[in-house]
């Protein structure tokens, strides 16, 4: 199976911010994802789609070394952020995570006030500027300011799920990242809150690179510029090894996929 498909020639002169080269991921002895090579473009939205368990989250979490937190997780091959090889021993994952931020599937605000949620990241990173202004600008960027400006000192738990998720996005922005990794950021939200998150992603694209995992085909086609379709290796189906099947501009993946499996998946004939 040809897994290492790069985006078409037309876009090759755009800047690449994240990439993997023959990267494989393991949990203990089990191979979760095998041999992924792909380049992610700066200031674009790239979505990862594919059936459950094919390793989308695993791949996503390698870009800020969140996999390090899972006992038994390991990597072979290379993962790059700009020109840094992320899994080299000289790399400090703490520094990487300030530049490559993350938003999770389930909103996970801290049990603190709205203000403190945003201020937490800047504080631990020795932010010297005006904290009030930073909090305001992050909440503005996350399209939450108008809803919370009068209750910044109230608990973040008093917000709705969609508001909490936007708070988590604002919180991630407060440490000035380049990249936002989002693992199914809207799957716990209702359709209206989902659309708001998608609008927000579109706005954020100007300043940030976004990589988003989603199970929602419409969402991938609506928001993303590039789409990577991952699946289970057909040749060794019992081992459930994730592979990258096809990676291209979103419009091509959804209108003219090269691979039969991709076509089946996006048209809902998968399985």
């Amino acid at each position, binding site marked *: 199976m040809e897994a290492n498909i790069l985006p078409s020639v037309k876009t090759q002169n755009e800047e690449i911010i994240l990439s993997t080269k023959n990267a494989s991921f393991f949990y203990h002895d089990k191979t979760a994802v095998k041999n992924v090579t792909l380049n992610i473009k700066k200031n674009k939205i790239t979505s990862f789609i594919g059936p459950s368990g094919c390793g989308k989250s695993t791949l996503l979490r390698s870009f800020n070394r969140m996999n390090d937190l899972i006992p038994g997780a390991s990597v072979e091959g290379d993962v790059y952020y700009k020109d840094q090889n992320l899994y080299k021993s000289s790399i400090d994952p703490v520094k990487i995570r300030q530049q490559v*931020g993350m938003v999770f599937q389930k909103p*996970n605000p801290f049990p603190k006030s709205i203000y403190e949620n945003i201020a*937490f990241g800047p504080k631990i990173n020795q932010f010297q500027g005006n904290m009030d202004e930073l909090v305001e600008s992050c909440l503005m960027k996350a399209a939450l300011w108008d809803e919370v400006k009068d209750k910044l000192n109230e608990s973040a738990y008093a917000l709705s799920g969609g508001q909490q998720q936007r708070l988590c996005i604002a919180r991630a922005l407060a440490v000035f990242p380049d990249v936002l990794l989002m693992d199914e950021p809207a799957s716990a939200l209702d359709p209206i809150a989902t659309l708001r998150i998608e609008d927000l992603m579109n706005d954020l694209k100007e300043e940030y690179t976004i990589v988003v995992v989603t199970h929602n085909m419409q969402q991938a086609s609506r928001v993303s510029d590039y789409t990577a379709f991952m699946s289970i290796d057909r040749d060794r189906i019992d081992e459930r090894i994730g592979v990258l099947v096809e990676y291209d501009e979103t419009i091509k993946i959804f209108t003219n996929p090269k691979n039969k499996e991709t076509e089946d998946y996006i048209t809902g004939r998968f399985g």
Partner: protein
Amino acid sequence: MNMVSNKKRIKNLLSFFHSTGMNDFNEKVMKVLLFGCGVFSILITVGIIISLFSEAIAFFARPEVNLFTFFTGTTWRPLSSNIVPENFGVRPLIRGTLMIAIMSGAIAIPLGLGSAIYLSEYASDRVRNIIKPLLEILAGIPTVVYGYFALSFITPLLKTVLEENLGIDVNFFNALSASIVVGVMIIPMVASISEDAMRAVPRSLREGAYALGATKFEVSTKIVVPAALSGIIAAFILGISRAIGETMAVSIAAGSTPRMTMNPLDSVQTMTSFIVQVSFGDAPSGSINGQSIFAVGATLFAMTFIMNIISQTFIKRFREAYD
């Protein structure tokens, strides 16, 4: 053959019990039995409280005693002599008790919290599985052993360090030595309850903080500890009420001299050590001396009861925290 028929009989018997009607009956019997157990333990507790307070009331009803001077007086002299009458001012005992509670808390709280953070955030599963049972062993050592450890090891150590080298007087029975062993004694409790509270903090909160570039230390101290704070405070309070109630080790190591002192190297008497002292002696029941221990006991009961209520409210708050 006999075996077979026995088996058959048991089987019949079992199926008899398992038939619906019998099941219903069993359920009812069990319910009544278990209800009885609950009522029994409540009755015993109520009985203890009644006898404690009725003796205490009898004590306060005596002409020699006065409720006000009991709580404000600074001299505790339960036995009269030819020269001086008895005097019941409970404050020296309360001060001795609090002094040991505070000093042992000062030892157990930082060390217990430190071990809890280590166990919950840093230790691998393997290390945790070794250390936790060890902590529980520490918690299971009889307290009288701690008392003799204080007398035979801690006190001589204090004497060498403070008296011989620095010229500070160290009483053979002293509050510091008792506080050190009581502190060590309650570390496991503080550590284990705090660790439970910290482990209950959802993983997603830790991940959220790591994703912002927090170090492990920052995640532990700025996210996990604050999120588990009410549970941790409950652990502190329970630990301190254990120190307040501790009897054996304190009687052995701190002596039995009721004294309004602030010097931790002096001998003091705590409320509990007064109670054992009188209990081991031959004060006749109904005598003023015999009754005084109930007054002290009731005071002690009120103190730890209030502390336990405070810690229960903290525990409740922390249970509700992440729903």
